[in-house]
């Protein structure tokens, strides 16, 4: 079981590394997105400070969305997913593995690159820390929820779409608390713990329910 988990994770990572440029690409993609805002908004230090949290989290959302269809679609089209349903292990292991890989490909790079955001947006050190922390806590939830949405929209039965529309708004709490935490540290040096608690709780919750929902959706999509 643990072995299957590892196999699938490493497989998905390998898929990503197959284009050796890809991991770097993720990083540079963030830099590009981040650099766009000042071009559009202007480079007044105050403004930059204010928008930094939003920018970071929009980048996170975009990243996990951009890579979401890769999550199951490819395996669905070429029939690998059928095979995964037939594995002797429970399906939720597969789901967790794929989510984990997805996070390693999207969430983690963002966490790692976020100091650059802080630099470009003139954030102080402890603000940089809080940005990294909030991203670290929140992005797994994005991947997990995204997985549910991806599984639901997979077969594209009418119901799936409607449900996935119910799913997408679930992103919002993560965004609010994540951005909120950074803002708290940027603007009013308000206590941030509360934000982190909520963010963490949200992630844990999604991790608890996500795999079950996602694998149910997968079975539905495949019959």
């Amino acid at each position: 079981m643990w072995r299957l988990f590892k196999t699938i994770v490493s497989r998905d990572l390998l898929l990503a590394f197959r284009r050796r440029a890809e991991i770097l690409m993720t990083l540079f993609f963030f830099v590009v997105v981040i650099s766009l805002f000042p071009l559009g908004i202007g480079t007044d230090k105050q403004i930059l400070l204010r928008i930094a949290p939003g920018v970071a989290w929009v980048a996170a959302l975009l990243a996990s969305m951009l890579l979401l269809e890769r999550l199951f679609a490819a395996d669905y089209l070429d029939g690998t997913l059928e095979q995964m349903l037939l594995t002797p292990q429970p399906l939720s292991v597969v789901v967790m593995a794929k989510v984990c890989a997805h996070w390693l490909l999207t969430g983690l790079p963002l966490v790692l690159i976020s100091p650059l955001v802080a630099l470009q947006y003139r954030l102080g050190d402890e603000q940089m820390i809080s940005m990294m922390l909030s991203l670290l806590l929140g992005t797994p939830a994005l991947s997990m929820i995204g997985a549910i949405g991806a599984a639901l929209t997979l077969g594209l039965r009418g119901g799936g779409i409607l449900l996935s529309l119910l799913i997408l708004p679930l992103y919002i709490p993560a965004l609010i608390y994540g951005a909120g935490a950074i803002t708290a540290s940027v603007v009013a040096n308000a206590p941030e713990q509360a934000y982190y608690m909520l963010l963490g709780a949200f992630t844990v919750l999604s991790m608890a329910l996500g795999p079950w929902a996602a694998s149910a959706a997968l079975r539905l999509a495949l019959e």
Partner: protein
Amino acid sequence: MVPWFAVPAILLTIGGLYWGFFQTPNVLSDQKQYYRIIFVHVPAAWMSMWLYVVIAGWSLVGLVFNTRLSFMMAASTAPTGAIFTFLALWTGAFWGKTSWGTWWDWDPRMTSELILLFLYIGYMALHSAIDDVRRADRASAVLAMVGLFAVPIIYYSVNCPDPNQCTALHQRSSMEYMESNILWSMLTMTLAFWLYGFAVILKRVRSIILEREKYTEWVNELPEIRSQQG
């Protein structure tokens, strides 16, 4: 042929750096010694822009006359260009840190160079993402052509975001009232970078050719290949 460029490149770099760092009077005392970075910074910046034009040129030749060599030249030029771009940004950032007290400022020139870096990276990423050589060459050539049209527009837009009073263009170009021997040492560095560029590009294109032609017989005639096989 490579050494013909490599050796003078090294010599000139050393010479230029020495000249720049120790032979130039301490003008711009407000910036203390930091300003000497300019001897790396500015030439690097120049090279970075020039090399992109070179790439586009080779790509055009390749697309029109369908010559494989020019594609190889373009492909092998890109990394050097990216390196110079990064060098310009990095030295610039360093300079900014010391003289302006900030790593980064959204000054147009810096921004446009940053964008140029993105273009380079995009070019290289595309080329490395396609494993069918033929398609890789032509696809990235098309990209370079598009870039050739885009770059001037982008530069214009960045340098003069407000078309009504367009003053930002060519700001802070203090070339004119620059000490002549500072200028000269800078030019030396530029020349040095030129030669370095030639050397590296030729080296790279050579290896690329060898890799792609490894099935033709003339390659196997080459001494070092023989020695490897024998």
